[in-house]
């Protein structure tokens, strides 16, 4: 019984360390899960479209993953309505088009 608070504290500490070790979505190229909560897809949008200025120095594999992430994001943004949907779809399309265009160029080289 006396050990129980210690066990609780250890569990909390382990959970905290696991959460801290989670990759920063801005840095990772790997795709997120398809089913995203609203906050998740907003973070994903920021992460995906923040790489447009890097497009020319990314590898073919990284570009392929970014294009895939854009396609997955589209399903989340399509569920929105009105002006927000219109603006975000256009912005996402520009990101995707740039990555696809750069990917196509690199694959031809």
């Amino acid at each position, binding site marked *: 019984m006396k050990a129980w608070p210690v066990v609780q504290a250890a569990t909390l500490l382990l959970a905290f360390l696991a959460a801290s070790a989670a990759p920063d979505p801005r840095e990772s190229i790997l795709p997120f899960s398809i089913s995203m909560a609203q906050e998740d897809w907003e973070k994903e949008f*920021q992460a995906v*479209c*923040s790489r*447009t200025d890097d497009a*020319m120095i990314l590898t073919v594999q990284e570009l392929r993953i970014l294009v895939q992430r854009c396609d997955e994001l589209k399903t989340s943004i399509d569920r929105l309505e009105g*002006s927000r949907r219109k603006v975000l779809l256009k912005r996402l399309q520009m990101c995707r*088009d*740039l990555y*696809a265009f*750069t990917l196509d160029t690199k694959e031809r080289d």
Partner: protein
Amino acid sequence: MARFFVVVALIVAVAVTAEAQTGVKKRRPLPYEYGRVILNNYSEKAGFAPVVFEHWLHRSKFTCRLCHVDIAFAMKAGGTSVSASDNMSGYYCGTCHNGKTSIGGEKVFASCSKKYSSDDMTRCNRCHSLGKNVKPQYDFAAFTQRFPKERFGNGVDWEKAENDGLIKPLDFLEGVSVSRKPLAVQKDFALDAKLESMPAIIFSHRKHTVWNGCELCHPEIFTGVKKGATKYSMVEIFDGKYCGVCHRTVAFPLIDCQRCHTRPVEWHKPA
């Protein structure tokens, strides 16, 4: 040298002829008119005068990318289909024109609102002003008085104005723009003109990306990355394609040939 001037005159003649073929002779816009866009997707249907958008004022405060990528305005007039509802929701013009946002220490006036009285019409007419005698808040001549001059377009060398610190266009809006890493700028390169005696074009990626980023031009305007992949003709450019998307409407106009055709022609003595 004489041949060079003949070639330039021929190109200008082609441009004028291309314009004339539409059957409408257009006068060259005055400096304060250059870059003006008329927006009328819904205005007249709603009983308002079409919107007059002045590029010169907005480009002095914001980069092209901020409006045409982050805020998602289309590159062609009417292409965005901005509605009052969009503005009221805080998108497009309403991103800044909401009565709350401050730019350069000044609060930006609110755009459309659901309910408005006759007192509000003064505010509405600031944008919905085509055909109306509306005195703008900013006078072009006074605003650009200190700016370095150029021959055509707005008559303002916007690039030099920024280099001299006279304007500081914003490239990031909190809550709107995506945080990006610094851009790895592509090198400048030369494009040979089709006419042998015409100086080659030196294209500066650095000058363009500082205002546009990558996604504004690629792939919507320029589909080829490799030099020589796409053949550009001056007829197409004067018709509003490729370079003409911007250098016929907002950036320095195409009749200022020497701004692009800068590499000296190497004269080879005939054998």
